[in-house]
């Protein structure tokens, strides 16, 4: 069993590394489609300068050699220097921005987890009552709301109209600028987790061991938490990977709307500026993050649910 588990983890790690290398490969070759080289500027550089620059950055080599080099540097997260922010390494820009994005993302994930599991359990134990119906309608509807719409609505209500939080985080210390982005980013995962918890709790409530626990005379609260929640939370663990994917995707626009200088904002900026090293670097690192979270979520699922068989 244990050997099997390690085998599975090893397999998944290898698949993850392969996927990362594939993303790097796709990024490299897709970027080769871009017409004009990195030295195409409004003011044309002299041929000698271009030759020197090419030599310095290894661009005089055949494409395949360049590709292998890029691959090698991508393994140690070296994505070169940004075009726009002169002389600053892409990795440094991204890691600086990561602090902001990661704190928003983790807060949103925790919020979604706590609120989602609580709402889902409550809805399941009060099945077909008004509150349950209400939650189901709201969660169904909120899955269809794009993150940019919800961000703009939150911004309008709480920042522009009520002035509870500042509209722009510039020059403001503390957590107030992060409140709305966290709520906006957590909305979709909360809705999803609520539905997931509700259906799995309903499943668990019908199980024999729940009846046994009740027959033993345990308090309803204890049954629900000790016997129910443990089992009903397992499917939620599988959602960790997709949840981080949706939070990262959402953060691309959410950070832009709330003007937070996170990875998302840099990514969008790099696209408007056509800052290719930054685009490539952000894509690869975000991809790596996603791969990592999916891996962790899949392995956790097996750890908390020993009945699952490996495939």
């Amino acid at each position, binding site marked *: 069993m244990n050997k099997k588990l390690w085998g599975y983890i090893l397999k998944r790690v290898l*698949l993850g590394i392969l996927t990362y290398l594939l*993303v790097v490969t796709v990024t490299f070759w897709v970027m080769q489609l871009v017409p004009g080289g990195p030295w195409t500027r409004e003011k044309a550089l002299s041929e000698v300068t271009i030759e020197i620059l090419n030599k310095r950055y290894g661009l005089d080599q055949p494409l395949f050699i360049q590709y292998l080099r890029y691959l090698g540097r991508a393994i140690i997260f070296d994505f070169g220097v940004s075009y726009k922010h002169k002389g600053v390494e892409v990795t440094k820009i991204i890691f600086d921005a990561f602090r902001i994005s990661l704190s928003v993302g983790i807060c949103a994930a925790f919020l979604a987890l706590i609120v989602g599991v609580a709402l889902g359990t409550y809805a399941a134990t009060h099945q077909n009552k008004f509150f349950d119906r209400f939650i189901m309608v709201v969660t169904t*509807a909120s899955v269809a709301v*794009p993150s940019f719409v919800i961000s703009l*609505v939150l911004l309008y209500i709480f920042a522009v109209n009520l002035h509870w939080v500042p509209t722009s985080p510039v020059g403001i210390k503390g957590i107030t600028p992060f409140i709305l982005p966290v709520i906006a980013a957590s909305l979709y995962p909360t809705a999803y987790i609520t539905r997931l918890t509700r259906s799995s709790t309903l499943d668990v409530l019908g199980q024999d061991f729940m009846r046994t626990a009740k027959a033993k005379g345990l308090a309803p609260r204890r049954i629900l938490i000790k016997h129910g929640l443990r089992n009903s939370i397992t499917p939620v663990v599988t959602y960790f990977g997709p949840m981080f994917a949706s939070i990262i995707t959402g953060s691309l626009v959410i950070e832009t*709307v709330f003007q937070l200088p996170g990875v998302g904002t840099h990514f969008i900026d790099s696209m408007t500026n056509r800052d290719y090293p930054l685009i490539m670097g952000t*894509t690869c690192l975000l991809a790596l993050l996603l791969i990592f979270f999916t891996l962790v979520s899949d392995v956790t699922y097996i750890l908390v649910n020993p009945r699952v068989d490996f495939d």
Partner: protein
Amino acid sequence: MKRNPLSFQIDTDKFSFASENEKRSTNLMRPNSTFFVDGLKRFVKNPVAMVSFIFIFLLVIAVFIVPLFYPYKYDEIICYRYTNRASGDFLRLAPFAYAPKELEAMANGTKVFPHIFGTDGQGHDYFIRILVGSRTSLIVGFFAAVIVLIIGGTIGALSGYIGGKFDLIVMRIVDVVYSLPDILIIILFSTTLAAVFDAYKESPLAKLGSGFVAIFVVFALLYWVGMARLVRGQVLNLRKQEFVMAARANGASTARIVFKHLVPNSMSVIIISAALQIPSAIFTESFLSYLGLGVKYPTPSLGSLVSDAQSYVSGGDTPKLFLFIIPSVLICLIVLSLNLLGDGLRDAFDPKLQK
């Protein structure tokens, strides 16, 4: 004829042919019903799915027919109907409001068609832009689903049917592609395609917009894997079923087995899964257009319309908020009703869910 009750004489009346009426009364079977008709009956009984269906149906009719005879065009700047110079009077008119020049024309007896949703920041009629924007979104969703269905279906069916090494290799590729982060790759593609199109401005693809093409490219490259897995699973599952073996034992040809047994049994699951791709594609398209990577001006899409209107939201310009609210609500309604419609179809037509 009067007869002796103890006689063995046969009553010939009892041996006459049964009348049509009598025949019918012995028929306990209800009229034949096909799988499709059964599903349709279940679907019609589902009010949520029906409402969604009617909404989408009316919307499709509206977005494809109304622009044909609507007096304004989606890329027409209204003020040039009245003056040769650009005029600020025609910008951001409230719904059913008229610009001074239009009032003048009306006073002179010319008929001016009202701007049902007002006009936008560039002076276009907003109603037609909303219609054409919705059309763009629906077209993207539909074609993305078709692409996924064709590519994923073919590869999945082949993989399940051929099996062996081919299946193994295809499934490993599927595993890897499945773990690729889709949105990042889409953004990457649309950024590069934007640069490529800038170099070839005249090509017809460039006129569609880079994000538009990127979505299709990415759906073709990435999203087929889910469909391929599904179809392969269906094929593998069905091939083992007893009724297929029975058909083969009865001497049915491969073609008959495929078309009479495999296709009808797997079709509903596959079509429903393809239908559920539509809202996700619409979602992705609106996301990209919001970021400015989708359709190119003057072609509108719901995402780009929201993006154009967002400055009124962050600026707190309440009277102009309708420019943001209308496309936002439409995206939500379209995605929501397509989701509910897909769920309704699944409940009605997926044989595995039938209780």
